[in-house]
């Protein structure tokens, strides 16, 4: 049975109707039209669907849309400020940190939650955290370098 749900995504309000079993990922993609969040495994391992919920990285495939009601959700679509890329997005270009781009949104949101923290992660912490998402194209080195560079750039702004 569908029920009305209100989602706050990237500071926009989406009034949708969804069954309790609908995942946040499906609601974002199909009900809010935000297809930048991708599904790679739907069992919470690959992290392609990572979004930020109330400041923390979350697997959108493991959360129901109803659970996200009233919480602040951030997705890849909200990362750039208008036509200006987020420093992390820019760093991904500069470091060739994406190939097919499918896992990219998940890495961007995971990394955003890390580098925007008050106490930025050190290199080992960064590596540990980034190891929670999977990428099959890049071999990771460029992703790690891009996130490190963006972390520095963010603090210099």
């Amino acid at each position: 049975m569908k029920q009305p749900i209100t989602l706050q995504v990237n500071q926009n309000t989406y009034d949708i109707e969804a069954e309790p079993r609908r995942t946040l990922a499906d609601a974002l993609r199909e009900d809010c039209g935000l297809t930048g969040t991708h599904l790679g495994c739907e069992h919470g391992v690959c992290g392609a669907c990572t979004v930020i919920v109330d400041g923390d990285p979350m697997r959108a495939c493991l959360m129901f849309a109803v659970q996200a009601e009233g919480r602040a959700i951030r997705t890849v679509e909200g990362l750039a400020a208008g036509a200006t890329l987020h420093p992390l997005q820019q760093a991904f270009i500069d470091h060739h940190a994406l190939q097919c781009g499918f896992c990219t949104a998940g890495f961007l949101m995971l990394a955003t939650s890390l580098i925007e923290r008050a106490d930025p992660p050190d290199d080992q912490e960064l590596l540990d955290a980034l190891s929670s998402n999977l990428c099959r194209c890049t071999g990771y080195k460029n992703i790690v370098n891009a996130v490190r560079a963006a972390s520095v750039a963010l603090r210099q702004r």
Partner: protein
Amino acid sequence: MTSLDGGMGHYTDRLLHCENAVSASFAFHPVDGQPFVGQSIPRREDARLLIGRGQYINDLALPGMLHVAFVRSPVAHARIVNVDLSAAERAPGVHLAVCGADLLRALPPVQDQQLPLPAKWKTTVSHKIFDPRQPLLAIDRVRHVGEAVAVVIAESRYLAEDAAERVVLELESLPAQVDPEAALAADAVVIHQNASSNQLAEFAIAKGDVESAMASAPHRIKRRFYHHRYAAVPMECRGVAAQFDERTGSYTIWSSTQVVHWLRREASQTLGVPEARIHCIAPDVGGGFGGKGHVYPEDLLIPFLAHQVRRPVKWIEDRREHQQSACHSRDQIHDAEVGFDNEGRVLALRDAFIMDCGAWNPVGVGIPYNTASHLCGPYDVPNAAISARVVATNKVPNAPYRGAGRPEAALVTERLMDLIAHTLGLEPMEVRRRNMVSAQQMPYPVHLPYRDGVSIVYDGGDYPGALQKAVDAIGGLPAFRAEQAAARAQGRYLGLGLGSYTEGTGVGPFEGASVRIDPSGRLYVAAGSCPQGQGMETIFAQITADQWQVKPEQVMLTLADTGAISMGFGTVASRSTVNLSAAIHEASTRLRKKVFAIAANLLECADEDLELRNGTVAIKGVPGKSVSLADVARASRPGWDSKRPAGMDAGLEETYYWEPSTVTWSYASHAAVVEVDLALGRVKILRYAIAHDCGVVVNPMLAEGQIIGGAVQGIGGGLMEEMAYDSEGQLLSGSFMDYLLPTASDVPSITVIHQETPSTLNPLGVKGLGEGGAISPPVALANAVCDALSEYGIEINSTPIRPEAIWQAVKTARASHA
């Protein structure tokens, strides 16, 4: 909701729009006046992918679109007694439920061998191939866990899955064949009733006289090698969407595929519709690596269903389905023998191997023939005899994945090199050096046929040079041996492993490019190649820009779209840069003649006086005397005010299909330094270096991305990944909980060294590099572990190199020494 539009024209416009949608400031600025080929130009693909505006198959939403869920076999081998769809048909939101028997009444069986073999190959190579074709849904039997038995179409994916659970399968179990050698036994249950046994193919190739050379060799080593089963596993699973257009009687098929033209050909045969009425598009594809490199039953079934229900239909494979129905790869057992002299020079190489092809064999002998034709590697092997058998089992079918038979060949040859060294007390590097084809021997005839039927000739390079560079990059051999001894004194086990290979790249039969001058003066290129993250839009813009002396931003591309060019082959086998760059070059060369003739007419000069200059056609040495490409494009138009020379056809477009004479040979050496933890059996990679040669490098940043990405897949395959089955044919690694992909913590820093020997077989001098990185890591790591554990005499001759295997081997060795 974001949607891909039905018309590809609109789709292309959107891509262009996306290029300008965000202001990305590039850290790299192309050097003016230099060719764009050779520069690390940032990717034009990145901006749209980084803002969440990529357009993958699952982002496609069409009005009235329905969704599909498959019912797949829960058992490895069974007779289908009954498929009861009635409960599913009554489930909420269901439009149609179909099983194999239903399809049999509506469609002809799938025909044709998917990869036709060239006549030259068939007359040169002794072979026997029986190629049963997989039906779109299983009909009388299921032959592997995950084989599709029925399909349900419903209003949403949720409802389709609900209904699929209500399908009742009545199956009568048959013995599962999971061991290819057991499957060859005389009393083994035969998986394909039209075949006389489970052996689906065999072939043999040879050079010289192996029998006598082996018999008279001072030393011989014979071993069994097993390269395990793993797979491409792209982050985006497969997916297909289709729509039938009543007005024109035509189909549009969107698929996450590497081969749109091949899909169109197969769809034409299956659906009984001319190719002109089928439009195939691969949108942004979330990785392929060969796993999406051939046509799958689902690619053909979804358009059929769209026609049945007269609504757009979409199927998105989930991860569990992917693990148990998208093709796996590798899985070969080799019995190999090498004969060599006292200096370690190979005199004879003999190998008989089996490939476990699983339940179907979608690309024939493509993989095992790659293995056979690459077995001699970079070495000057005077006598060789190689034979292969392809054996059916009740597992997921086996199809090419990054390397496609070459990692298996490298495992055999590169382990044998180390075993020769061990036997003679030589350095493995020295044994390789003594056997490698030298730069002075180039071009070097191998005297074995490639799979295009042409006798192999290594067309150039410095194999020992690459080996030396790789070893130097990890610190050099003497320094490593000192480091190893010092570590050993502290109770630590370090090892150095090498892995060298050669790789035929840019295989035919062809790829084509249409090059057009747009009325805006911009260049437009349409081609049959299908990117999955390689950065083709960027590199082919660089290549085209050089051809026309314009900036890459002035080049528009449409790839992976059968509507854009009438014939294409697709992106597999490290072939796109090689074949498409040549096609763009040739089409541009022809088009330039026409452009110059029209420009000469406009400028009232001779064609020979003209040159391309900053996006214009200009009179040589006369500043300001020029016409823009837009002027020329307008002048070329048909009509009353055309400014073409008399007798010239209208329009500015040339299509050229490049048919390579044969493959061009890339090569590399990998060097790995590892530390083995004896207590845990764990392998830690301390240093890893790759010296490779892919000819002229179009974009070094992207090339390095391909090599490192491939190497990490090889490292994952060597140490972690396995598509494992139990004795009943149940897949044990059906999710990412069980199938371990490398993470950021698992990969070492990798040093890449480019060695650039331009190919002589194509105009730009390029060689393929997409697959190479994945070839050597498993064997380089096996050699490194053996080197680390040399005091125990442990041989790692099978993969994956698991902690438990190492731990057990050490335990056994210690027990026997005690």
